């Protein structure tokens, strides 16, 4: 293993895992650089890039004016010239300002004229922190149907580390969403020698026999919480953590559903037009005859993300809501 690999196994937070992945890829490859708002001296709004300016200097850690479309476009241009930019959005909500660059340009170049765009677009996402409508986005559905992009949305520190390094090495534009609720609450151990984990592969987060919950990111932890409650009642749910939404590990989804004969898709998105809907459709099309119950979706309200904790709690899925829906499906 090269010097870029982690040394002995170490416990890190989800946030530290991401910072380490960036630093390790930058040490391994001079083409990798960071660009975004306040990523340099300040170390990013959440301090993910803290210390990287000191180690790598302003050539490779580039602070920009507030111009998401501008610096995303510049990163695409640099990527086309053979560099490996990693773009940080201060909050992933602000990627909306760069939507044209990401969807119309970055995602289409390979198809239209054969030009690869090796690029990572990353930032803090998700709610449950009273961030309100402009600082709580889960934007995966906006990009899920856009051709040419990959979408990674990890739930654990180990996955965040290994998948981010894989995303940086991938020759395509990769959206890498980091649920901010997990940044300092989730810890994990990076195994000795870990470099990359493959994109496009789901992870079995829990084995069970009665129903499959397909989910990703922070909702994996909600599903695990519900699983403990349900196990006490004799209901064993299986949890498939997709980790990568695009490409989606459909084989892992179908294999689990064919075993448990029930499927529920849990996600932190408004249900209408969600990625969860795409997962449910795939199950309905390809595993219909294995199903003992309708495919269910548990997600957010079809509203903007509200601010006040009672409102946001009501808006978000949680373990109790999930468990209630699982009971209906299993007993039905």
């Amino acid at each position, binding site marked *: 293993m090269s010097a870029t690999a982690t040394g002995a196994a170490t416990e890190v937070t989800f946030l530290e895992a991401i910072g380490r992945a960036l630093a390790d890829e930058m040490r391994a490859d001079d083409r990798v*650089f960071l660009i975004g708002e306040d990523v340099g001296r300040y170390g990013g709004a959440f301090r993910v890039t803290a210390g990287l300016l000191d180690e790598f200097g302003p*050539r490779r850690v*580039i602070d*920009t*004016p507030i*111009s998401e*479309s*501008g*610096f*995303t*476009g*510049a*990163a*695409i*241009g*640099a*990527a*086309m*010239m*053979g*560099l*490996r*930019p990693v773009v940080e959005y201060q909050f992933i909500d602000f990627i909306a300002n760069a939507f*044209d*660059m990401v969807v*119309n*340009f970055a995602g289409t*170049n*390979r*198809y*239209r*004229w*054969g*030009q*690869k765009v*090796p690029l990572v677009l990353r930032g803090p996402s998700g709610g449950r922190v009273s961030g309100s409508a402009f600082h709580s986005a889960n934007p995966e559905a906006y990009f899920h149907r856009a*051709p*040419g992009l*990959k979408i990674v949305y990890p739930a654990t520190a180990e996955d965040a580390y290994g998948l981010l390094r894989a995303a940086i*090495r*991938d*020759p*395509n534009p990769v959206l890498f969403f980091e649920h901010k609720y997990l940044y300092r609450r989730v810890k994990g151990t990076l195994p000795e020698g870990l470099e990359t984990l493959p994109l496009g592969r789901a992870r079995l987060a829990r084995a069970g026999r009665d129903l499959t919950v397909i989910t990703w990111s922070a909702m994996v932890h909600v599903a695990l919480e519900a699983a403990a409650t349900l196990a006490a009642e004799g209901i064993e749910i299986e949890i498939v953590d997709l980790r990568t939404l695009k490409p989606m590990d459909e084989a892992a989804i179908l294999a689990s559903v064919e075993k448990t004969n029930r499927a529920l898709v849990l996600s932190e998105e408004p249900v209408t037009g969600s990625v969860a809907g795409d997962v449910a459709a795939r199950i309905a099309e390809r595993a219909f005859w294995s199903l003992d119950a309708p495919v269910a979706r548990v997600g957010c309200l079809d509203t903007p993300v509200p601010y006040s904790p009672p409102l946001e709690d009501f808006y978000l899925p949680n373990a109790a809501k999930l468990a209630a829906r699982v009971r209906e499906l299993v007993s039905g």
Partner: protein
Amino acid sequence: MTTSASPLGPLHPDVEPRRERLAATALPRESQLELYRYLQLNRRLEDRLTNLYRQGKVVGGLYSSRGQEAISVGSAYALGPRDVVGPLIRNLGSLLVRGVAPREILTQYMARGTSPTGGKDCNLHFGDLARGLVSPISMLGALVPVLAGVALAAKYRGEDSVALTYIGDGGTSTGDFHEGMNLAAVLEVPLVVVAEHNGYAYSTPTERQMKIKDLAQRAVAYGIPARIVDGNDVLAVYEATRQAVSEARAGGGPRMLEVKTFRMKGHAEHDDAGYVPPELFERWRARDPIARFERHLADEGLATRAELDAILADVDRRLDEDVDFALASPWPPPERALEGVYEEGET
């Protein structure tokens, strides 16, 4: 001096100089004849495309650079082999100067399987970094930050190549233009932006797009040096671009040129431009960049009529061959539509 401080804009005919002499240049005769060849290739290829469009052979829209050829040709001619260009829809001449063959353009417009994109995209919408070309982007302004990033990559690697892109008067109102110009200025990257002031954004005249007279005024706000250039003088465009490229290459940061010109057709072939006062067309027809350059070549004793005719005959022969090639080219196989969304493997 190759540039003029006075506005040459279509909206200010009273101050339009009547100057017939083209800008001074040290370009040798052979190079000037090469410029002439590119100008004529640009115009005559577009004339062929207009005919093919009327025959229903062009399956999408057709966009003309008529009257603006000197800008594309003159600016691209000022670049070095490792420089990178991001052209827009009216920059056919830039592609030709970078070595794109007419048949590539013809098969693109005609959506044939032999086109550079294999039928996947239209008109000039392809790139080839081996020839220093980035694909145009229809969303105007977007190329400015993208080419700023191309320039950033050169600076990152310590290379001295320069990125050049174009914008129209309409495109300078976009957020991407602003973000790209400002970013390029702050990052001090070697970017040259050629702003073509051709009087109309589709049907909207400049005075309905902005409250300033010169696009160069926009550059002032970014701290980017800009010059106003006669866009219908290929030598002026060449010399001004050469100077701007040289300054950017030397580490001076971005540069902008405002080139005053006029769009001599509608936005696209379907548009009869009935909203343009006929006298504007007349005034600008008298300033046609190719006719002016021909007179310059004759006045300076650089070419005889017979020599120019020989160039034209060669251009026409080349176009005959390439039109035949495009017409004989097959459609792409339908299942190609599935191919190439992702790059496979690690980098």
